[in-house]
């Protein structure tokens, strides 16, 4: 892969200057987002540097335990990030449902794609396993975050309609159905939209990375297709698990709504 251009320090610096210019514009316009841009840029840099070195180590010393450990860290981080990202109050019970759905949905999808579709050997080969896990877990995290917010907000806002349905003899499932469906839709929509625009409006991150590092676009596209299907499947699976278990946490054994 001698055609890969390794970036020099000054080239990296030029990229940062771009952000500095952006910060300057934001300040002039009086948009109160300087801090967020600065912090997220710094965080991204530090996280990627750290990740880069860790990946180099793991790639050179591949071992199932390392792979599992990395997946575990990703899952914990993702779950924690969901709790932080949804700006609604979450009960302990719904937090457990989020964690369970997230871990179960992503792990099932991940293993199906690693073992059945890609048929990776050895299965823990970090060069494949880790980036694919990242895509699946990251996208599912985004999906579930949207779903959580829609579900919790929906139940709070439509409390009177849910109660009215219960008064008429509806099961909690019937009473919550419109909200559950709506939460599912809004969680899966971004993934569907990104699939529709794929290859035309933008080249997805992973494919861009592969192409830049010298892989033939045809191979990159095949991987991208497989990964997108994995992402779609995983997002759908985690969100279905979440909404189907999540709405139940708002009802007690007497089929009463408690919020």
């Amino acid at each position, binding site marked *: 892969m001698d055609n890969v251009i390794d970036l020099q320090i000054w080239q990296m610096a030029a990229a940062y200057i771009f952000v500095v210019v952006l910060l300057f514009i934001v300040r002039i316009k009086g948009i109160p987002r300087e801090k967020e841009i600065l912090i997220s840029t710094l965080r991204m840099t530090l996280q990627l540097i750290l990740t880069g070195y860790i990946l180099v180590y793991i790639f050179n010393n591949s071992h199932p335990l390392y792979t599992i450990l990395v997946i575990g860290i990703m899952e914990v981080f993702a779950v924690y990030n969901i709790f932080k990202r949804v700006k609604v109050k979450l009960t302990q019970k719904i937090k457990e449902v989020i964690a369970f759905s997230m871990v179960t949905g992503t792990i099932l999808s991940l293993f199906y794609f690693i073992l059945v579709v890609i048929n990776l050997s050895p299965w823990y080969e970090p060069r494949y396993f880790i980036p694919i896990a990242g895509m699946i877990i990251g996208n599912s995290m985004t999906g579930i975050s949207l779903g959580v917010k829609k579900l919790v907000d929906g139940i709070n806002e439509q409390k009177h309609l849910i109660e009215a349905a219960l008064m*008429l003899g509806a099961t909690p499932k*019937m009473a919550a159905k419109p909200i559950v469906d709506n939460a599912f839709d809004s969680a899966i929509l971004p993934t569907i939209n990104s699939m529709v625009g794929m290859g035309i409006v933008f080249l997805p991150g992973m494919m861009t990375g592969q192409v830049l590092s010298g892989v033939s676009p045809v191979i990159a596209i095949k991987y991208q297709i497989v990964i997108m299907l994995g992402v779609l499947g995983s997002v759908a699976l985690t969100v279905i698990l979440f909404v189907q278990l999540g709405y139940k946490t708002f009802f007690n054994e007497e089929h009463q709504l408690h919020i």
Partner: protein
Amino acid sequence: MFRLEGVKYKNILDIDKLYIPKNKITCILGKSGSGKTTLLKLLNKLISCTQGEIYYNDRLLKKMDSIELRRNVVMLPQVPAIFPGTVKDNLLIGLKFSEKQLVSDKKIFEILNMVHLNKDLTESAENLSGGEKQRLALARVILMEPEVFLLDEPSSALDEDTEQIIIEKLVRYTKKMNQTLIMVTHSKKIAKTFADNIFEIRKGKVINQ
């Protein structure tokens, strides 16, 4: 039909003894905030009492399946609930929720007539006026033919004459159907004219009359 013994709900209701007879019209009076809605919710098992026992037909309410109970003891909330969809969707949704047989348009028109609502069945229910929504919600529970109606101020948004006529028709209908009617109302006149049984709630306690 309903028997309450030493029932407390938080610090909102405190009912030592209360009996609500079967196949009769019972009216509940009381000032705003006295606990009338809370009492209906207890009977519908939308909430459970924190102390005491409620019996329905001599069965302990807390031992009964909530959903089965609510399908027989239907509650009409104080603020009418309008679900997305047409007038017809809204009328049939009660039957769908309680998994009962849907009814013919003829039956629907009969009930709509009873509550003085002449609206196109295909009209969007969200566009109805406040009083029309209230009558739509009332028609919905009548269509369900429950054993007991728990009506929370079913006619509060209607003018006095219409209120009188609709309640009279409703009372006659429930008598014919051998149904029990338990109704919260602010109108002493309605209570005196139609009720077989009246009681008042004052600061969470029942005052018999």
